[in-house]
């Protein structure tokens, strides 16, 4: 089981890095976030901002922006997960091999999540560089890191599910983007609804659970929220691929 999952995950990663896409995405994300990091840092250097802590302003601010950037690039990374196997016909190789669909889906998910961890590591080098000259609130950084990671794994599982629905990467990408964006802003959509509904909408928002983790509040319901979202979409992907053998 573990063997097969890691085999598929490793192949996914190898093929990601064979295409220029992964490299370009890493570079562009790094570049954009570096600009924001610089802006936040110079904002902190202004005398007026000195009241709040460095970690609060720069580190949390940067991870907040990272979430938005990930929302934009994540669909591009997840769009080919299943669609491409289908287009190349390699899905038949996978399914006629002695591996289960659960292993296949988990392998894909683990592969893309490892890529996200790598991206996160690259980004985190920037705030880490601050530690040369000053002290940071490591607890808050850890909480923020967990937040971003959970957010990205939720993105990955939603993207994975949507790519299992179609054989066209472009359709997968745009639909994933739509769904992620909707889940991001759904709390705004709910502001005009009745009080009870507004709360429900706000609760469904991927953003809300994320921001409390950024400020260093480690609430287990927030963590659970992302885990449930991930597990839910992974199970849907497994069902979807399984059903395809019968109805496809």
């Amino acid at each position, binding site marked *: 089981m573990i063997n097969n999952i890691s085999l598929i995950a490793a192949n996914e990663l190898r093929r990601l890095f064979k295409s220029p896409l992964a490299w370009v995405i890493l570079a562009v994300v790094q570049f954009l976030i570096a600009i924001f990091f610089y802006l936040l840092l110079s904002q902190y250097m202004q005398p007026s901002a000195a009241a709040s802590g460095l970690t609060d302003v720069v580190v949390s601010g940067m991870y907040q922006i990272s979430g938005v950037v990930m929302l934009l690039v994540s669909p591009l990374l997840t769009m080919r997960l299943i669609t491409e196997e289908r287009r190349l016909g390699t899905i038949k190789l996978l*399914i006629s091999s002695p*591996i289960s669909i659960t292993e296949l889906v988990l392998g894909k998910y683990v592969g893309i999540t490892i890529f996200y961890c790598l991206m996160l590591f690259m980004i985190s080098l920037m705030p880490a560089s601050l530690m040369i000259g000053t002290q940071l609130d490591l607890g808050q950084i850890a909480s923020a890191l967990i937040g971003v990671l959970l957010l990205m794994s939720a993105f990955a599982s939603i993207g994975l599910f949507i790519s299992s629905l179609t054989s066209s990467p472009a359709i997968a990408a745009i639909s994933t983007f739509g769904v992620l964006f909707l889940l991001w802003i759904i709390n705004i959509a709910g502001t005009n609804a009745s009080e009870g509904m507004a709360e429900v909408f706000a609760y469904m928002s991927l953003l809300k659970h994320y921001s409390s983790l950024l400020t260093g509040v480690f609430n287990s319901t927030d963590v659970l929220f992302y885990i449930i979202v991930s597990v839910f979409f992974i199970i849907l992907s497994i069902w979807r691929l399984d059903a395809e053998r019968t109805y*496809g």
Partner: protein
Amino acid sequence: MESEILISVQQLSRFYGQQKAIENVSFDVHRGEILGFLGPNGAGKSTTMQIICGVLAANHGSVTIAGYDIHETPRLAKKHIGFLPEQPPLYNDLTVNEYLNYAAKLRGINKDGLTEAINLSKERCGLENVGSRLIENLSKGYKQRVGIAQAIIHSPSVIILDEPTSGLDPIQIREIRELMRELSSDHSVILSTHILSEIQSLCDRVLIINQGHIVLDQSLDQLENSSDKPDSIEIGLRNPPALESLLGIEGVASVESINDDTLRINFSPESNMIAAIVEKAVSDNWGLFKLNPGDTSLEATFMRLTHGDNEQLEKDESAA
């Protein structure tokens, strides 16, 4: 045959929505047997093959591979399957070595046997010199060979090939046929093809499927002997005589002219008609320049069984 049954297909049916793809398909394949799968386009060949490999699920019926049910115990059953779909399942951005390495691990070959398995399957498919090339840059024939290499890499007891020789040149086709004969000694092979001569030169048994039903399941020997149609030849004559004089030769059943100088002669197989015709052609100066065997009995059978769909049949090269 007393040898072990490796593939057992029982009353398989499969629908795509309302449309019936195959219905009540049953057959067995023994160890060491090559089964040729024949049928017009859309007859259900690929569907049947994909169900046997577990890529598609059947609506009714069961498939047993080497004693394991593909639905109940997929992992055990699939260990014994090597499958080449119609479109070879290749990752264009990997090299041949990387790809075969991945395919071998997917099929559960452990580290110790890995290099050996990859080298053997590369050698068998003639891929020794392209190991480090990207699959994307290979020609169609080589891609097809990589596809075959991945299907046999784990020496499965059951090898299922959907049109394995498409896109290959005649020399490669001969090599692949040699390979399949070699493999069939201790494996079962199912292959589908459009090319009738391929079935004749390679298969022990032929299965013709039409509109989702098996219309013929016979060993090739049986088929060759049981042909109920008289055989025919095509002759080309520069100075053709009147048709009546041909009918006078012993054994000739009927004569039809195909064009100005080519005739088709149907005759009863027992007679010594060909020799008689040649003798007469020389003595009467007919200008004989061509003598071809006509439809083989397999082709005739195929045409008869799939009547109505024959415009889709790719013309058999053996008739040429």
